[in-house]
């Protein structure tokens, strides 16, 4: 038994971790600090030997999850796409052991991910979906100075070789009040992982088997999930769904103004869309008005279920947080909610939310969020979420209604707000977050990185 330690995310560590923390990349278990500074760099490997040399040099600097709860919070993370694994010379039988959705890549799975219309890969920013993104490196820190130092370490490794090309580099960072581009505090609800040592935060739900998030451990059904081969490559590794969204702040504000005549009405509507007020206070606990103290309190801001809000009179059945984690909501389809969770590492870019922006031009300002969705079956989970909980409503009896925040809305779409005596249906909801690109990455363990770096041929 360890002495009780409190992590940067407010979680309390009371148990000796049973996971190989030294092997698992830091970003998997470490909560994102606040404030934070960081950069995502996308790279292409033009020469296998140079790519492996780059990996050999970078690997000692990749952060692990050891002491993930400690405050020292600067790390580098690395992900490799299927095209990247090929470019690095990973052997054929090993390549074939990866799941199909990962092999073909996120753009090729557009149909399964419902990435259609404005979200179609043909509209994505380069280099997403071109097959050229081989490696993603992320630097993240709680201080500007340490972030720059970490980035410099990464830069030295890839600039040393002619066979490794930087395709794109994107800075991201903390916004005033740690708000997302639509003006909400988010990233509050994360799955609690068995074996990490953490005591779940109140309301975080039961501990979920580590195998759902990290390869090589038993999953919820008992058996470990299928793992790429050889074992050293799979064990303690995982997958990342990388998605870049642009927030259409003007469209969001226009919608609020069209359906709320006072500031109070607009803020209530905004909260109904998300299920939380802007402070993070959940509607389930604060149905009438925002409660900033509640929103800021990690011990209380997630401590609820929907047992007393079966019909969604407080938090609508179709609101964003109830879709992304229905908790004990009665669903129309047999569902094990624990199987469809993701570790989310959200990072915002561009200027902060502007409550007065209403013009179509404001929609085109590069501002939004880049998410890293982490799971041992990230591809299957993202497809499930997109098909069942985001761009659909049948699972909670809402027909074709979609997620009001990250769903892609069709012409004439609506959002239902349960109310007494009759529900209110708000028409003309627009797409507020447009997908600008994405990639699937394999996030190798430290040993797996070393194994790949030392391949020959």
């Amino acid at each position: 038994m360890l002495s009780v330690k409190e992590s940067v995310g407010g979680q309390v560590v009371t148990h000796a971790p049973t996971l190989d923390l030294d092997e698992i990349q830091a970003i998997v278990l470490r909560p994102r600090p606040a404030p934070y500074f960081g950069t995502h760099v996308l790279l292409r490997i033009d020469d296998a030997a140079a790519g492996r040399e780059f990996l050999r040099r970078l690997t000692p600097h990749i952060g692990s999850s050891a002491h993930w709860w400690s405050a020292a919070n600067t790390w580098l993370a690395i992900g490799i796409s299927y095209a990247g694994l090929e470019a690095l010379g990973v052997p054929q039988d090993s390549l074939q052991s990866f799941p199909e959705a990962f092999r073909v890549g996120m753009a090729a799975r557009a149909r399964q991910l419902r990435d259609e219309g404005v979200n179609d890969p043909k509209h994505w920013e380069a280099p997403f979906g071109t097959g050229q993104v081989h490696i993603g490196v992320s630097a993240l820190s709680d201080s500007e100075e340490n972030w720059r130092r970490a980035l410099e370490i990464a830069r030295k490794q890839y600039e040393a070789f002619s066979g490794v090309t930087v395709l794109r580099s994107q800075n991201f960072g903390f916004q005033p009040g740690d708000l997302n581009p639509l003006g909400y505090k988010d990233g509050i609800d994360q799955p609690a992982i068995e074996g990490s040592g953490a005591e779940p935060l109140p309301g975080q739900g039961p501990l979920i088997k580590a195998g759902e998030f990290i390869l090589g451990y038993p999953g919820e059904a008992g058996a470990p999930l299928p793992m790429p081969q050889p074992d050293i490559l799979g064990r303690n590794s995982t997958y990342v769904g990388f998605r870049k969204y642009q927030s259409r702040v003007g469209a969001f504000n226009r919608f609020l103004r069209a359906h709320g005549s006072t500031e109070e009405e607009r803020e209530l509507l905004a909260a109904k869309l998300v299920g939380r007020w802007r402070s993070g206070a959940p509607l389930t606990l604060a149905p009438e008005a925002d409660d900033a103290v509640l929103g800021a309190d990690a011990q209380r801001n997630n401590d609820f279920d929907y047992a007393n809000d079966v019909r969604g009179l407080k938090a609508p059945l179709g609101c964003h947080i109830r879709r992304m984690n229905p908790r004990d909501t009665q669903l129309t389809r047999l569902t094990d909610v624990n199987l469809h969770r993701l570790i989310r590492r959200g990072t915002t870019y561009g200027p902060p939310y502007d409550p007065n922006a209403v013009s179509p031009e404001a929609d085109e300002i590069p501002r939004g969020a880049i998410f890293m969705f982490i799971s041992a079956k990230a591809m299957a989970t993202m497809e499930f979420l997109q098909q069942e909980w985001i761009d659909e409503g049948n699972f909670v009896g809402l027909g074709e209604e979609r997620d009001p925040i990250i769903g892609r809305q069709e012409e004439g779409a609506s959002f239902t707000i349960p109310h007494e005596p009759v529900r209110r249906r708000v028409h003309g909801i627009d797409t507020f977050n447009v997908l600008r690109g994405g990639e699937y990455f394999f996030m190798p363990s430290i040993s797996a990185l070393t194994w790949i770096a030392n391949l020959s041929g």
Partner: protein
Amino acid sequence: MPTQPATANRPKQSLTVDEKVQKMRELYADAPEIGKAALENGLPTLTEALAAPSAKQTAGRIGLRQGKVSELCVFLPFVKGGAKRLRGFLELLDGNFRAADAVGTVHDMRFVFVDNDTKLLFATAYDGDFDPYIDDFATKIPNAMDLWLCNCEGYPGMRSGKAKQWIFDHQIAAEAWYVNSPNLTAAETRRLEKVGKAVEELLDKIG
């Protein structure tokens, strides 16, 4: 293991109505007399169907879909004694399929014993893609699944993580698939039943 017919990924044909009619005549040139006569007499009605845009969609990796409703058909060899066990089990269930009710996406299921009780033909209509919820079966209703599928050869067990692939390996895609209300999911149908009843009650009170 049945071989997969090539229908699933056959390239879309874009024939004109006249070409389709011509094709029908070629196909039925050596048909029995009843068929030839039916083609000539039924041609006006048939031409309307042939003129309509394609309504054929695929469901997940294998199988067909219309609107929101997909078909799944598997052909499973019984293990020794499997047919007897499953028949007995189904008789005792006496038409009560609580697990299927719980699944919520299943429209119908049929269990047909063929080839002198050596194989099971299982056919179902369900909502959406086949993949998304299979993992949920493994944690929520593994026993209900294992109880009937254990009677079939090579079944790896719901908790093994291999059941999804095993089902795919035994799936036979239908050549054609028709759904009367392709936009109604099972959940939506039940909701509309409730709404319809409530509307009638309301009208009763008014009238």
